[in-house]
């Protein structure tokens, strides 16, 4: 279990994975670090794989949408 709360952005569709929020609809509880997501986890917006995500400093996620 890691405690890296770095946000990750999907390079395909701009979805932002926020560890504090997790992805509860797909069984990922809040507080799950990106590294701890299962390998078969997919972008909930577009279905991209984990490898297609980058730390948010490299590419901005669509924060306008995700934070509101």
């Amino acid at each position, binding site marked *: 279990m890691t405690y890296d709360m770095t946000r990750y952005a999907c390079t*395909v*569709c*701009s*979805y932002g994975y926020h560890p504090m929020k997790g992805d509860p609809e797909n069984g990922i509880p809040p507080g799950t670090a990106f590294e701890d997501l299962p390998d078969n986890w997919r972008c909930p*917006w*577009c279905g991209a794989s984990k490898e297609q995500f980058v730390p948010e400093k490299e590419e901005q996620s*669509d924060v*306008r*949408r995700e934070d*509101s």
Partner: protein
Amino acid sequence: MNTTLRDNIDWVGYVDWTVRDFHGYNTDRGVTYNAYLIRDEKTALVDTVKAPFADRLLQSIAALTDPAEVDYVVCNHAELDHAGGMTRVMEVLPNATLACNKKCEAVLSKHHDSSGWKTHIVATGDTLPLGKRTLRFIETPMVHWPESMFTYIPEEKLLFSMDAFGQHYASSQRFDDEVPLCTVMEEAKTYYANIVMPFGRQVAKVLEEVAKLDIEMIAPSHGVIWRSHAPAIVEAYTNWSTCRPKPKVLVIYDTMWDSTGRMARAIHEGASLPGVAAELIHIRSSSLTRIAAEVLDAAAIAFGSSTLNQGMLPMAGAVLTYLKGLKPVAKAGMAFGSYGWSKGGPEAVDDYMKAMKWEVLREPIRAQYRPTFEVLDECRAAGRLLAEKAREMAADRRAGERLCVDP
């Protein structure tokens, strides 16, 4: 045909009257590919058309201006029904710069040889002044592709909304108040259900952005332009983005020797309560396109299949595979069907409903070979259960909601 949206803003698209198939979507009323020309101190083309019609688009442009005068080609969406003509358009418009976002450029470069194109990359909030008018860009990721984008002209209160608010609808009129509103709304709903439904959450976010804009006219890239009923289509999208249920029950089924058919009719009979719309849909007499549109605003769905080779009938499987991808939410459901010597049909339907996270109201109703009177009574009772659930789920609906304007 009146093609003028505003002074010097004209529709230059193409009406495809005879096309009936869009990768499996039945376009029973044809399709339009909308493109718009804005003539100001600078001239901009917003979107193109499907490749075979690029020269028709260029003729429409040439009727309004010298093609050498076109300064910008805005690409809101890289899908081929809008950007397929881009190779031809960029070849014929000698002074045009492509304006699109980064993701759009990447997709265009896969479909076209874009090496010789002048490109101007834009992002949300960027503007492109044309003179008296300004183009402002709003990226709308996953409504319905990653690179999707809106273009807004604040001076004209005009939004080019790309596929959002569109309809597959061929007509010789270009505006919503020139055609029957019920027909336009039905096609807008069918379009939403079949193309946009998986992205309801992203649509909701885009609608928040739209609410911040002062809009009088919405010009989508398919179908008629919303000039008199723009608030109605925005309200409809608000409802559709959450699959907001009506008091509506669907009984969708396929059957081999009418055992599952008899069960379906009994469920439908039970569901036909006052204030509830109960619809009976035989899969092979309907289409994926129509079924998706009906599912969008249904509350409760009974889905039946006979058992074939220990599973569902193939067309029942096609419908559920399609629906699973469209991700309809806020649905209650139940499975039913017949079997002979081995189970499998209704059980497979039940698995699909659970995978779609529908609220499954009861275990599947099964009939071996032929439904008995007892089984048919159980079907009628299940129909009533679905209808009561549908009423409850739609309880926030106003009495007498206008069906045309508020689907």
